[in-house]
């Protein structure tokens, strides 16, 4: 760079914005950085992280390699208790990091009550609540049972779940079937019609889909997600293309494997009437892929990012089973008529697993139909995706965004980059009413809080 005087001056300006303008006004080249101060990680931890930078980089490269190599296939369905490791009749899984009954938010409590009713363990909501409060059941995060759940994410023993196998590594992930919008369990509703729908899903939808999936010999979810991105989905807040593609892939097998034409019709109508049906497949697909990247010593790549409506938690590849948490923020959202931010529950759900593997908010540039959530213009959406490249370890070699000239989505969140740059992941999200049973009140976006990332980096530093 000693040839500074003989080449044109190209400046990067970090700090005072007017300097950038005056350089360009006087004929120079300048790029302004929208700089933010780094997060307040303890100096000792930062020192250790810097001293191990090469090791971290290599570990992250390995973690990303595994993510790129992941091959999530929908291979079957079963009852949760029969297929999820460590599941039991009195165990209830939930979204986000671990939480006790007394700290659960309204929608999560409502979903728990609904699940108890669904399992037939209580005759009324009051009785279910009493049992739950008295400690009759055990709670655990979905994430600790190879599972993920949208919003409250409650999984109970007899719920049917999709089985996704990451065929490149042999590990599996699980997720329930999506109930649709309106009053649904995942938003904490537990009225009789909610339970009735769940029962129909167990008794009619599940057997039909199970038969169809088995007949099909397995469905390649990576391929569907890649195509959905080209069709305007980011597979978190928009799953219309993914749902359609799934239906296209399943229908021949459904027709061949199920005898009753009325059942076939109801199954197709149900899926067709629920644009989010594919979310419960994109999520476990991401989970299966990220689980294969766990436990790489020194890796600062996130393998989970999840909220239980009270806490926001993350896990790193290099920090084992530790959760790092902070308070979950209330999303910045567009609200359905009659609701405001005052009605909103803090962020909830395991669906941020999509962002964790480079989809959702990270791929929002692929989904112009939902840019109203991020300011209204396609340019805004692209800028959000561009920003996420700053904290990503790499770019996806399968998931690509047409509007960015088919650039791969920003993939593999690096907790160290997050704290160094003061940029937190950008997450698409639905918003639950803070009271149990009301349901969804809006949809929007949320920036992850910085606190879990600071703790995670300090936790990783503690392992060197």
């Amino acid at each position, binding site marked *: 760079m000693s040839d500074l*005087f003989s080449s044109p001056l190209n400046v990067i300006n970090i*700090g*005072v914005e007017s300097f950038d303008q005056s350089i360009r006004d006087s004929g120079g080249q300048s790029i302004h950085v929208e*700089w933010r101060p780094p997060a*307040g990680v303890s100096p000792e931890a930062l020192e250790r992280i810097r001293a191990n930078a090469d090791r971290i980089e290599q570990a992250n490269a390995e973690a990303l390699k595994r993510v790129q190599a992941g091959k999530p296939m929908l291979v079957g369905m079963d009852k949760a208790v029969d297929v999820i490791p460590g599941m039991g009749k009195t165990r209830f899984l939930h979204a986000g990091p671990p939480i006790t009954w007394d700290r659960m938010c309204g929608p999560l409590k409502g979903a728990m009550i609904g699940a108890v009713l669904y399992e037939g363990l209580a005759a009324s909501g009051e009785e279910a609540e009493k049992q739950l409060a008295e400690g009759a059941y055990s709670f655990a995060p979905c994430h600790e049972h190879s599972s993920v759940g949208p919003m409250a994410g409650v999984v109970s023993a007899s719920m049917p779940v999709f089985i996704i196998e990451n065929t490149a590594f042999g590990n599996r992930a699980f997720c329930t079937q999506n109930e649709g919008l309106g009053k649904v369990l995942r938003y904490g509703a537990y009225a009789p019609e909610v339970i009735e729908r769940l029962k129909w899903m167990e008794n009619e939808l599940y057997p039909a889909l199970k038969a169809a999936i088995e007949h099909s010999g397995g469905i390649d979810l990576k391929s569907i997600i890649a195509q959905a991105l080209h069709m305007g989905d980011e597979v978190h807040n928009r799953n219309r293309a993914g749902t359609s593609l799934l239906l296209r892939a399943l229908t021949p097998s459904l027709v061949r494997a199920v005898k009753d034409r009325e059942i076939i019709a109801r199954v197709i109508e149900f899926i067709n009437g629920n644009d989010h049906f594919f979310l419960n497949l994109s999520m476990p697909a991401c989970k299966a892929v990220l689980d294969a990247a766990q436990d790489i010593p020194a890796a600062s790549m996130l393998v989970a990012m999840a909220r239980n409506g009270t806490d926001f938690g993350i896990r790193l590849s290099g920090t084992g089973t530790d959760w790092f948490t902070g308070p979950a923020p209330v999303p910045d959202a567009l609200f359905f008529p009659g609701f405001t931010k005052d009605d909103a529950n803090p962020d909830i759900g395991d669906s941020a697993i999509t962002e964790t593997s480079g989809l959702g908010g990270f791929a929002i540039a692929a989904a112009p139909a939902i840019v109203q959530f991020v300011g209204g213009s396609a*340019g805004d959406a692209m800028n959000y995706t561009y920003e996420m490249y*700053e904290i990503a370890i790499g770019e996806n070699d399968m998931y690509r965004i047409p509007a960015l000239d088919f650039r791969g989505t920003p993939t593999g969140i690096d907790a160290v980059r997050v704290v160094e740059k003061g940029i937190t992941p950008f997450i698409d999200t639905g918003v639950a009413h803070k009271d149990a049973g009301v349901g969804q009140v809006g949809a929007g976006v949320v920036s992850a809080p910085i606190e879990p990332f600071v703790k995670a980096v300090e936790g990783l530093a503690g392992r060197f």
Partner: protein
Amino acid sequence: MKIKAKVVSGRYFDSVSLMRVAREVLQMPGVEDAAVVMATAKNKEIVDASGLLLPEFKNAAENDLLICVKADNEKTADAGLAQAETVLSAKTKTGETGAFRPRSLAGALAEHPDTNLVLISVPGQYASAEARKTLEAGRHVMLFSDNVPLEDEIALKQLAAPKGLLVMGPDCGTAIINGVPLAFANVVRRGPIGCVAAAGTGLQAVTSIISNLGSGISQAIGTGGRDIKKAVGGLAFRTGLTMLKNDPDTRVVVLTAKPPDPEVLEILSAEIKQLGKPVVALFFGGDPEAVRKAGAIPASTLEEAAHLAVALEAGENPEMAVNRLVLHEKNLEETANETSAHLAPNQKYLRGLFCGGTFSQEALTLLKPQLGKIHSNISPDAALPDAWKSVEHTIVDLGEDEFTVGRPHPMIDFSLRNRRILEEAADPETAVILLDVVLGYGSNMQPAEELSPVLMKAMETAESSGRHLAVIVSVTGTPGDPQNMDHVVNTLKTTSAIVLSSTAAAAKLAGKIISRIDTNRSTRHE
């Protein structure tokens, strides 16, 4: 009086943007004081000191934005808070809807690999980390940020030197690289004269005067004021000199700094002697003989340094240039006679109010031998008891920390000095007010419009009490500067202020006027 405050989380703004917001709030009628700052420990201390920090905001986090407004009543204070937020959100909006701008150095470098220089002006505690990353990525650094620890400066320059990379700064306010003015810099002609300076406004003056003389600047490199200290060892000076040595477009070199530590001068001397190009050196108050020994031609003022360089480049005898300046000085005699004759008997003191650090240094150096004791906030042997109040002969550098913490620099915001001008004018013992105006990028864009009414008012104040106030203004800049130098000079002249093109001339005229007073008075006594 009512104080209201508010914390905004999760957003970051640079300090200059925030000061502009504060300024907009301050301009609202009924608003007494306002602070819009990132809630760092240091900023909270300042806000607290000014009585604006409500107890409930003492725990605001470092990355929070803190807005405080003090006003006549609650309604006005609330309106002030609302105004601050409006201005801030207007800013965010344009930022977000425009083309994507990278969020970090690494992100910017990935998108723009042909970058060769990074200009860093983030708060001091973060600046070293950004500079280190820049150097590790093999790019030159201009470090505008101040409050960078000395040990960081040393480490950065030691990292840079073997790579042949420049670290201009910390606290480097000005540079011109490949004809592009950086930070606070003037629009000068390109030409054969290269500069290295540990003096920000000094570099602005030298480059402007060279350009106004019809010559031009190849490169102007700033080093930061501490570079010539023994601890730093002139590392940036040496890299700068080597780069100018290898630059075929540079034929004469000008150095500007406070006198280097002897060890550093020795090192620089070796570089100067093998440079193969004439070197003019201005070390304020330093020994000219030491400069000659070091292989350079000594200059006594910024103006003289510029004239010497231009003469050398033109192959002229440097003596001629010096003689011309002496001749110019003679022309000041008449002005001095005329002005001093109008002064009232008890008007006897000089009040120098400077925005440019180098200029206050230069004025002090030139006038001390003549006026004896000059009180100053930059003079340890005659420190002002209170920098906010002048005593006898006083020269203040309004760019020093006591005036700039939490406020825009006086080169940008004139309000502090404007108030001070009126205070000096009201003092019956003030004879001469000496001021500087610095043009160029970064500085106040309407200096004449903001200063002239104040000068008129100052002179009226004096006249109404039967006094005549001598106001001398030096203007540093070029006709190419965005403020339009001719317009600035002409507008200031309409106030009957005396406008000169260098601090040295302005200071010398001030000295002559004051010494005339003494002579006139002793004549009367006889």
